[in-house]
């Protein structure tokens, strides 16, 4: 884990310091930190010579650029039509039951955050969810227990890459 200042500087060196490089830099910070703190936005604004409100306004527009502290593993369960038809509710219940958190909450140990998200593009394999950048499809409560069980031990089992 790099200190934020260094991380932002490295990202700006890599992507550039124009306004058009803002999203990749925000994404880079989120990749390490899972979210954008006030401090990291200040650093980004300073590095890119942008008003900090512009950074904030832009970041909050995008669902994947979280602005409050997140867990190490962000679970995003798809709630759009097909997933909702094919049992999203049961999936959510299974996750909530296992992690003892509600939607929008983070486990006490800071490991998991549970969120809902809009269409992931796996409607033919509904229900689907993301954990960080991994996609898991055709979920069942059993599958949830298996997947989360491995994450509990920081073992990331590969998700779907090609349908």
């Amino acid at each position, binding site marked *: 884990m790099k200190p934020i200042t260094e991380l932002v500087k490295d990202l700006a060196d890599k992507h550039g310091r*124009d*306004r*058009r*490089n*803002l*999203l*990749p830099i*925000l*994404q880079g910070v989120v990749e390490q930190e899972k979210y954008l703190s006030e401090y990291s936005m200040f650093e980004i604004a300073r590095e890119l010579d942008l008003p900090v409100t512009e950074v904030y*306004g*832009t970041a909050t*527009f*995008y*669902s*994947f*650029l979280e602005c409050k502290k997140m867990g190490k593993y962000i679970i995003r369960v798809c*709630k*759009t*039509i*097909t997933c*909702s*038809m094919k049992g999203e509710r049961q999936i959510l219940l299974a996750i909530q039951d296992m992690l003892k958190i509600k939607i929008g909450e983070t486990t006490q140990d800071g490991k998991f955050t549970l969120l809902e*998200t*809009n*269409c*992931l*593009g*796996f*409607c*033919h*394999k*509904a229900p689907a969810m*993301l954990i960080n*950048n*991994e*996609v898991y499809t055709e979920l069942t409560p059993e599958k949830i227990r298996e997947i989360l069980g491995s994450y509990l031990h920081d073992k990331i089992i590969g*998700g*779907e*890459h*090609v*349908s």
Partner: protein
Amino acid sequence: MSANHIVKRADFIFKNENDWEEVLTKSLARTPNELINELISSELKGRGGAGFPTGLKWKLTSELKSDEKFVICNADEGEPGTFKDREILSRVPFKVLTAIALCGYVIGAKQGFIYLRGEYFFLQQELKKAISEFEFFCKEIKYDFKINIFMGSGAYICGEETALFESMEGKRGEPRNKPPYPTAYGYLGKPTVINNVETLAHTFTIFKYGSKRFYDLGVQFSRGTKLFSISGDTPKPGIYELELGMSLSDFVDDFGDDDTKAVQVGGASGFLVPRKKFSGTSIGFEGKLVGISLPTGGSMMLFNSSRSMFNVLDNYLNFFAEESCGQCTPCRVGCQQLLKGIKAVKRGEKPASYLDKLLDLAETMQYTAKCGLGQSVANSFTSIVENFREEMIY
């Protein structure tokens, strides 16, 4: 391919062809005008949903003088029920890369981008590898062209082309006023061709086989094949390449579960067709073949009789209320009113006649919203409320 399907399968896009180098080299030997004419005579229309003639788009951009132009491949596939673009990029990336490079050649751009939605982050590594292999080949044949991936971060509206430019420019993904159009004023204010992934893949087919091969498929106004993302209550969900112009009843015979109550054509921003209108509906662009003809980005969601159309509409409207960019009044407030309105009717807090006021509002949204998102909310809203009014009330 079994012959007893009424709906005609095709296999162009995913066909394993390792000849992209050849297609690229041969096409680069032709003049830009020849390539444009090939596209124009194929009558290929955009596969993202709006259906703008691809050849014309390239032509308009090629005619403009500018120090810089761009080609952008729109892979911000966010329409509920659509998942074909991911499949193309993961299975046949070189076809798309070739098409991007050829578009660059035609319009005079030295740089292309793939705007990949954040949800498809896992595709990035493979795609990067493909790009470096592709660029290496370009270098070898002394064709100066670069392709970059630009990652989205979770915003459906960025699939709207001008919102996508804003996003690439590091801003909130808010659609711009049009005119000016992207062909003249796109990314960084430069002339830009922005095409959907599948559209580009089709141009590969057209450049390889010639426009006639493509034109001969499909029907008048709706030439060629199209990828369909099929989901919902179907025994065989997945992605299928089908000829355009099929009738919806044939489609349901093929893909339904014998209990299909309605089909959502074109995703949440498309139209819901109830059973009684299956036979009068065909899938394609404008022109009247069998009753009405519905354009589509290729999403087909089937609902059987166990589904409540109220729940379906409620889900869509939630989606739109959240995914609207929020800048224009009709879309930002309109979506919330439609959503809260149908709930109020359902709960008996508003009379059934309130649905008529909402239909009227949906029409206003269609006339006045700034971009396609707000304008098309009325499609699903009106088609669901008009065809399943009783389900909205009781």
